[in-house]
């Protein structure tokens, strides 16, 4: 389950770095692609703008066919205030750009499952795959536009996991 979560995050991070290398964030003294796992960072009083934040929610198992299928619900939150050069008046366009990027990040909807607890990461036998994303309506918080997207992520448990 943890390997699936790590693999999903790393797949999205790698795809973001290639789709839009300019979308970066300075976090803990390092510049990195603007996507982060909320549970692996210091608590935020306010989620950062122009960054994709991954939050893990629900969890379920299905052990019908001898193999155990893990199902995990992932929420991806993002928000923007637009850019300074436009005085924030382009925040709608900035949110649309993030919507488009997220759709691109989620295609194709599968990635190899890797074990990241060892260096270099080792490939496992199965894949991590996910459903179509469910986009929530835009939330408006003063000058900040945001959205959350929920995705069900699946993976089969392997021996030793």
């Amino acid at each position, binding site marked *: 389950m943890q390997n699936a979560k790590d693999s999903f*995050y*790393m797949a999205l991070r790698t795809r973001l770095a290639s789709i839009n290398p300019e979308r970066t964030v300075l976090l803990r*003294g390092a510049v*990195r692609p603007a996507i982060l*796992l909320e549970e*692996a960072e*210091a608590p935020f*009083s306010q989620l950062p703008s122009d960054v994709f934040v991954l939050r893990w929610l629900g969890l379920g198992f299905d052990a019908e066919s001898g193999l155990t299928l893990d199902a995990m619900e992932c929420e991806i939150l993002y928000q923007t205030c637009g850019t300074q050069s436009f005085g924030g008046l382009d925040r709608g366009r900035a949110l649309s750009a993030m919507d488009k990027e997220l759709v691109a990040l989620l295609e194709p909807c599968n990635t190899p499952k890797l074990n*990241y607890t060892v260096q270099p990461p080792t490939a496992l036998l199965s894949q991590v795959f996910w459903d179509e994303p469910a986009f929530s309506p835009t939330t408006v918080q003063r000058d900040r536009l945001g959205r959350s997207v929920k995705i069900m992520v699946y993976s089969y448990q392997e021996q030793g996991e």
Partner: protein
Amino acid sequence: MSDSAPRNMGAGPQLLADALLRTVAGTSASLRVTGTTADTNQSEMGLVATTFASIVLSPVVMRKLRQTFVKGGRANWELLVSATSVQKQINALDLGSAQSLFAMTLAVTVAGQDYLIESIASNEAFGQVYLYRLLLREAEQQAI
């Protein structure tokens, strides 16, 4: 007749704020900041412990905020921090602003208790900040 003697008008409120903080039992607080880490996959997934540094700010004054009781809710506090001590640490760490310093702060420790920063405000006079006010919430106990 006007007084045209050169003087730094900004320093007065800062000195006054420091003096007031000291006289009302000013203590010290330490910020636990993250060290600069190599951008590794493992550090982004909570697999590698980040290096931390402790930065001491003094004088500071802590005051509890009045709040309605909520079951399981944590108390909120306000930490009044001397702007001169913040500026000293910004210079020492070669940071661009106080916001950068607070952004890299994981927790604030006062008298052995950890607090999380909820929001930051500052008071200014003559265009210079003389006091930072941090809204803090008591941190949950972490596993050892």
